[in-house]
């Protein structure tokens, strides 16, 4: 009656990039105990190596060079090893790798060189990867927490520094609060569909579409509350308030990492839940999902608020906090687009591409900020970039590239991302929100260009601290931003393969 499943049944092979890293993380946790305090670079190297191996595996699997495992489901459907999840893996691992690189010297600078940093970072990465692969609301929830809890700790990593602690506390309380909504939302969805499996939900929603009104209520309220939980993670308006505060207070290396990682995880989950799970839940006679309007409205407000408010900022970390809110808005367009029949895959692809582009660009931006930051956490005001082009031409060039990428100027990764997002919006006939999207891109040019102009057109003295790993991280980010922008088919070839196991 109760059989112990074999490894083959579990289809572990398909999950190897994730599971290997999970084992690795646990191993490093143990190993770190035996590494003396002044040699934490060993942990850093180990972490990087682990991430690297996993990254290579993910890339190979994404591009189809190796096809391990049997089918796209593992662990009886709890884990989905489709191309989308591989894409999420790549984005997450890239971010983690760059995160480690920007962190090492920064931790020295702030005097917090601890092994925990690295494996906590690994755990959140695992959380992101599991989120992208979750085939069940249970795994989704657990991996969300796996993503969140280490991030709370990392935000407070600079203790006993007040700002760092405060940001950790805020993040934690609000995060837990949002989790409460998520759990309740999951409960309601379960109540409506009778299953926590996303495949099951996907199959069940078709019946609900023509079923009782109360069930529809249940499902939609559940979807709404799930949206709150995930929206909080990706910093969508109106759940964004924590973002600038946390970005400003947390150690910059953490921000560099989490500004991307949390988004990767959050959007992966959104794609799984909305793009796949309840994507075909349309009311009778509608061709679009019942939740589509809500999400595109949120997207619109997110873009508008994020971009406009960023203009008023003069603190770089806050500014990019708002900027990251704005970018969440762009990606939400794609999520909304997923609610139109037949666009799901395209939308998932757009999200994946946007995330990769965003990973390179945004980590790069924060890496530059790290280079500018002084030991006392000052030096991150916008005035500090004045004259950077003369004192550090290459750094300024990289920053310029990132700025253009975030603005969405062609030949940068950011443009490719926006292109695909807007394209999915066009496919879904979401023209108004696409118009808002491009107009707010214009608004965003205001503050991104201001940074360029401060660097190039103004005079000023800037001290920078650019250790080698950080320089490499910036280089990789810049090259990545440029390469993805110039030869987007690298992305798109992969992206063509990106499909969801089900949904649409």
């Amino acid at each position, binding site marked *: 009656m109760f059989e112990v499943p074999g490894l083959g049944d579990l289809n572990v092979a398909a999950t190897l990039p994730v599971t290997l890293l999970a084992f690795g993380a646990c191993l490093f946790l143990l190993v770190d105990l035996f590494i003396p305090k002044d040699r934490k670079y060993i942990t850093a190297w180990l972490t990087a190596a682990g991430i690297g191996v996993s990254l290579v595996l993910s890339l190979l699997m994404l591009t189809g060079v190796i096809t391990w495992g049997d089918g796209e489901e593992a662990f009886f459907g709890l884990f989905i090893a489709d191309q989308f999840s591989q894409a999420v893996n790549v984005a997450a691992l890239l971010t983690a790798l760059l995160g480690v690189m920007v962190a090492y010297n920064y931790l020295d600078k702030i005097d917090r060189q601890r092994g925990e940093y690295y494996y906590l970072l690994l755990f959140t990465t695992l959380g992101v990867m599991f989120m992208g692969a979750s085939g069940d609301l249970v795994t989704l929830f657990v991996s969300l927490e796996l993503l969140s809890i280490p991030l709370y700790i990392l935000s407070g990593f600079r203790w006993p520094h007040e700002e760092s602690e405060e940001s950790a506390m*805020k993040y934690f309380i609000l995060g837990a609060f949002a989790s409460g909504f998520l759990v309740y939302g999951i409960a309601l969805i379960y109540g409506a569909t009778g299953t926590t499996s996303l495949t099951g939900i996907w199959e069940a929603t078709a019946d609900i579409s023509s079923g009782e009104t109360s069930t529809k*209520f249940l499902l939609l309220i559940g*979807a*709404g509350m799930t*949206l*709150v939980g995930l929206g909080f993670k990706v910093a969508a308006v109106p759940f964004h308030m924590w973002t600038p505060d946390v970005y400003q207070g947390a150690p910059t290396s953490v921000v560099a990492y989490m500004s991307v990682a949390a988004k990767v995880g959050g959007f992966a989950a959104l794609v799984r839940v909305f793009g796949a799970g309840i994507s075909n839940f349309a009311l009778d006679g509608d061709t679009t999902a019942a939740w589509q309007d*809500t999400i595109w409205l949120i997207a619109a407000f997110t873009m508008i608020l994020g971009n406009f408010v960023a*203009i*008023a900022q003069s603190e770089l970390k806050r500014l990019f906090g708002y900027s990251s809110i704005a970018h969440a808005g762009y990606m939400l367009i794609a999520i909304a687009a997923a609610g139109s029949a037949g666009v799901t895959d395209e939308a998932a692809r757009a999200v994946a591409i946007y995330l990769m582009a965003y990973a390179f660009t945004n980590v790069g931006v924060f890496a530059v900020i790290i280079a500018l930051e002084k030991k006392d956490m000052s030096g991150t005001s916008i005035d500090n970039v004045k004259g950077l082009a003369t004192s550090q031409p290459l750094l300024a060039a990289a920053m310029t590239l990132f700025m253009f990428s975030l603005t969405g100027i062609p030949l940068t990764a950011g443009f490719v991302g926006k292109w695909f997002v807007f394209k999915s919006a066009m496919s879904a006939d979401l023209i108004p929100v696409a118009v808002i999207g491009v107009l707010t891109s214009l608004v965003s040019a205001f503050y991104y260009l201001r940074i360029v102009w401060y660097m190039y057109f103004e005079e000023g003295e800037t001290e920078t601290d650019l250790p080698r790993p950080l320089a490499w991280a910036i280089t990789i980010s810049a090259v990545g931003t440029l390469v993805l922008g110039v030869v987007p088919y690298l992305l798109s070839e992969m992206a063509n393969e990106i499909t969801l196991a089900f949904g649409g």
Partner: protein
Amino acid sequence: MENYFDLVPLVVLIPLVGMLTNLFFGKRFGEQGVAIVAVGASAAAFLIAVILWIAQVNTGYVPAVIDMPVLGDWINITSAGLRIPWEFRVDSLSVTMMLVVSGVGTLIHIYAVGYMHGDSRFPRFFVYMNMFLVFMLLLVTGNNFLMMFVGWEGVGLCSYLLIGFWFDKPGGVGWKNSDAARKAFIVNRVGDFGLILGVLLTFWTFRTLDYYKPGEMPAAAHHEEAAYEETLFAPDLPEDEHHETATGPIGVFNQASAWLEEGDHEVNFGVISLSLEATITLITLLFLLGATGKSAQIPLFVWLPDAMAGPTPVSAFIHAATMVTAGVYMMVRSNVLYHSSDLSSFVVAMIGATTAIVAGFIAVGQWDIKRVLAYSTVSQLGFMVAAVGVGAYAAAMFHLVTHACFKALLFLASGSVIHGMEHGHHHLHEHGHGDHGHDDDDFDPQDMRFMGGLKDKMPVTYWTYIFGTLALAGVFPFAGFWSKDEILLDSIKHGVNDGYLSGYLAFVLLLIAAVFTAFYMWRQVSMVFYGQPRHAAAEHASESSNLMTRPLIVLAILSLLIGLINIPSGFPILGWLLGKHEFTSFLGHSVTFAHAGSFNFLLATMAVILALGAIYAARALYNDKTLATLERDPLELDERTAEAFALANAKLYWDEFYFKYIIWPYRNVAYWLAEKLDWEIWHDFAHERLIRDPFNRATQFLAEPVDKGFIDRNFDRLGTLVRRVSDRMRVIQTGYVRTYALSVLFGALLVVILILLPVLRELLGL
């Protein structure tokens, strides 16, 4: 003989080479070298013109169309059917113009060598002069309207450059010269505006701009138009050849003739369609606007008097003999079109005649020796234009030719006078004869009130001047007599024989204008050459050099004799001796409606008597008066004429009118547009106040009240409210984390409501 026609490009290219040579090497050549090149180029062009003329005569006046070597088509848009080649036309009309331009041009070039001697920009002057030849000859030899337009604006450019030649004269004169140059160009552009529109209309009407296609013959005039027996000069071609060409590609004029003969032809261009007659009227009126610009007719004549700021050879060459006649040439060229439009012809006649009389009137009131001549030129051009208006195309061309000779003569002679005066003035300075009590700064070598008694000082100039004056006044047997008489006769015939009102009107106006002409010319002669010198400079004036006087003599002879090329048929003896209507019949091979005038003894006598009477009156008024320097005119002193004189002296306030109602408003509006509307309002206000500031405010609004304030303040209040509801009435400081949480809650509520809306809508059946 036909092979000689291939030389026609040279008539343009040789001056071009001359111009380029002097442009690049002029500085190295020195005055003599430059003079040789420039005069040589002009003379060579004249030589070629003569060869072409002879070739025309010997080939039976067959028109030829010659391609420009080297260059391909100028404009060629096959899909629009537009093809504008660089093609030259050799026919009697263009040859006539070539002869006049290069012939008079050569003489003036020679004269100018003397006149410009010692000028610091001697080479540049001759570059411009040769350049003018290039464009003027291009104007008259082109086989399509657009090539004519190249020359048309090109001569305008040269005119601009030459009027402003002394742009650097000190004491404000330089600025004045520059302004005069600019005025000329811009006023001409107004005319060109009409011309170019006319060209556009021509193209869309006839789908070509070529006058005639290669091998095509000008159509013969209609028989009913042949009011006089001697009118018709059909080309000497067999009938069948004529037909053959008519079926091939066909130029503007023959197309027009053919369609007019057909009748009821509609022209469609763009979104409108018009009858052919209306279109032609429109075209010809637009061409007329062009002609009023270039040929200085009302209302655009204002630039010509100012153009006298240029060196005198320029005034003689460009602003009297050649360029200003371009308008007449163009209208004669388009005689087929003008002939078919009664309305246009009427307007042309009236404009010409009015200009003739108005300019004649103004000339009476001028002090400046060159200005008098300038208004005289305007007046004489009015004669030519009026001639076109009454259908006397041959007469117009005839007057053009004779006028070129005697007006060039008069200008050159006046230049000689000015030269003499300046010489005298110099002499005065060098020898310290400054004891005449006149402030030397007031001295103006062109003001006739400083002159007087030059007859003995400058005998050659005096005699040639007299020749010119008599020719201009139309005294038998000088050239002007023949041509002016023909115009007058044709006008009255136009009225009497053909019953056109314009004929009568033009006749009367022109006759009065002729009286004015004789009067102001003798007034000038009196003031300049008779009586006593009114200024020391005049006392010390001396005859000009041979380089200047020889051309005067040649031109004086021409002024006497050139009229003999076109002896009217009714004239006794001479016609029998020299042949009748030689010129008209020559012209008739290319000008379809050229018809010869006859001779009316009564009219001729009347005209001569009137002219002599006017001369007598002027003599009585001015000759014996020994006027002091700057003294007022006798006409001004006489109460009966004072007002009229003042009006003439002020040029009828024409310039003031333009300044007040066109130029100043335009300029002020420009400043207003530039500074107020475009900059302060549109650039600054609209973009800063209406776009940027609200944008910034929106940013601030979203950043402060909405993002921070909405949470911090309103949610605080809301939080307080909630707390009150939950019976905790303490006023407590709220924490930000909790307000953030509140925003999450409200967001959640919002999301839930939003997401439920579709279901609610379904439920409520909306």
